[in-house]
């Protein structure tokens, strides 16, 4: 007595294979939908913005007239901002990740901390903006400075960097650590010579992706009250500044149609910066990733 009836199996075969094809087509459409939407958006922005995108646009300050408007203050401001965010968030993030993964004991308090760091990554950016406004702008009296905005942005992306760094650290095989401990190395020597060299590609990739989120983030800057129209470049960390997304936001909400095109040109600049950062991340990942 056989349990599987061959004729019944053959009868169902065509149906099963058709079903397989239907699902494949559905998933393909899902992929295409996102890609096409993105392509249309990009096409619109490029066709609108490319006319305004030239050297003058990069070297001019903001202006009342669309054809004189430039992005210099915002571009430089965003770079200054990154100059604060990158070191602050990476140092704090990697330090936290190392503590949690290598030093912290596995107990309830630490599990609670670990879990809530992931939750923190889901907190809306405007909330971080309010936090920054209260602590850095008002309590620490940093004003609407690069430093205040940089600290706020660092807090915003810190959870993302911590989680990325934790994953990179966890991906280092435990045999590697054991080999090091087995020769009498201390924990710190093991971290410095075995764990970090193996984890750095992953940490950097995660950090750069997090930084590219920070450079495009607008809501916290709006809450902090970062100005839009500035006719000077920042001269220090406590100086006022403006940033790319703020500038784009300002242009996009103006009534004159010409400024819509200027905004598109601004978006092109921002996207170029983003693509550049992401390419660096991919390059680092491919070039330095170690395989065991």
């Amino acid at each position, binding site marked *: 007595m056989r349990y599987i009836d061959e004729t019944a199996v053959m009868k169902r075969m065509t149906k099963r294979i058709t079903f397989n094809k239907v699902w494949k087509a559905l998933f393909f459409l899902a992929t295409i939908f996102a890609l096409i939407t993105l392509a249309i958006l990009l096409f619109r922005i490029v066709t609108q913005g490319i006319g305004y995108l030239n050297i003058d646009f990069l070297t001019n300050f903001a202006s009342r007239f669309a054809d004189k408007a430039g992005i210099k203050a915002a571009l430089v401001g965003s770079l200054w901002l990154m100059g604060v965010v990158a070191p602050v968030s990476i140092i704090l993030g990697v330090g936290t990740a190392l503590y949690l993964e290598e030093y912290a004991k596995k107990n309830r308090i630490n599990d609670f901390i670990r879990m809530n760091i992931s939750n923190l990554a889901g907190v809306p950016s405007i909330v971080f903006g309010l936090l920054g406004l209260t602590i850095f702008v008002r309590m620490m009296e940093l004003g609407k400075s690069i430093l205040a905005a940089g600290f706020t942005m660092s807090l915003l992306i810190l959870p993302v960097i911590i989680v990325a760094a934790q994953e990179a650290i966890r991906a280092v095989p435990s045999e590697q650590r054991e080999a090091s401990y087995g*020769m*009498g190395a*201390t924990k710190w020597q093991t971290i410095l010579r075995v764990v970090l060299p193996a984890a750095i590609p992953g940490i950097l990739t995660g950090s750069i992706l997090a930084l590219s989120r920070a450079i495009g983030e607008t809501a916290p800057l709006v809450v902090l009250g970062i100005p839009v129209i500035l006719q000077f470049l920042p001269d220090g960390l406590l100086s006022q500044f403006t940033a790319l997304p703020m500038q784009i936001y300002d242009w996009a909400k103006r009534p004159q149609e010409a400024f819509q095109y200027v905004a598109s040109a601004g978006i092109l600049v921002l996207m170029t910066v983003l693509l550049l950062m992401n390419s660096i991340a991919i390059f680092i990942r491919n070039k330095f990733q170690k395989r065991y």
Partner: protein
Amino acid sequence: MVLKIQEEKTFVKKIQTGAKPVTEVAGNIVYDTRNLNLWYGDHHGLKDVNLGIYENEVTAIIGPSGCGKSTYLKTLNRMVELVPIVRTSGEILYRERNILDKDYTVEELRTRVGMVFQKPNPFPKSIYDNIAYGPRIHGIKNKKILDEIVEKSLRGAAIWDEVKDRLNQNAYGLSGGQQQRICIARCLAVEPDVILMDEPTSALDPISTLKVEELVQELKKDYSIVIVTHNMQQAARISDRTAFFLSGEVIEYDKTDVIFQTPADQRTEDYISGRFG
């Protein structure tokens, strides 16, 4: 069945012919384990282990999977502490000092007691940097001294001739057997007193296994070696003493030829004749 056991025993005898006779006089004791108990959470992993390990001998630890043989080995350099839920009682005297004492620093212990792991685990660095790792963490920076240590260790692990022209290449480019000998060399570079080996040949092909076994024979002139193996023939071939572990207990511990030819305990006999495990 009886006949089968007889055959097995003659086989064991056969493979032992040609091996050096075990020195009758026991040397200095290196490790003296007294009433060691160990728990993984609620699981009683080692039960009242009493075991002496002697200088310049190869001590083999055999037993079925989960019998606690690797756990015991990892207790000897306190590597077992990497699992946070482990508790121990009793004492392990290493050169007459109890290593389970709170004030015995693990770094000091592990500098004197090297370890070779089951899976070859070189660092993703050059061969040179792999070997120099140990000396460097102990503060040796002088390039000339490092060069000498690297050569001496690689020679000691019988791999110098194979790698001397490519010391700057990544150790991952080597074969599994070569990687394992690199790991042994890396362990020698710290100039240990004891070498613990946790199934060092289980991931290797027969030829590489043979090379490692020959190396172990060579190394015991200068080091005391404790080797965990699931391969009984290997234990018979290379060890001077053998301990048989079962469910966390030492069932029998004696000279290897005694264990393999005239075991005192029925369970030992059953195990070495392949009736379980």
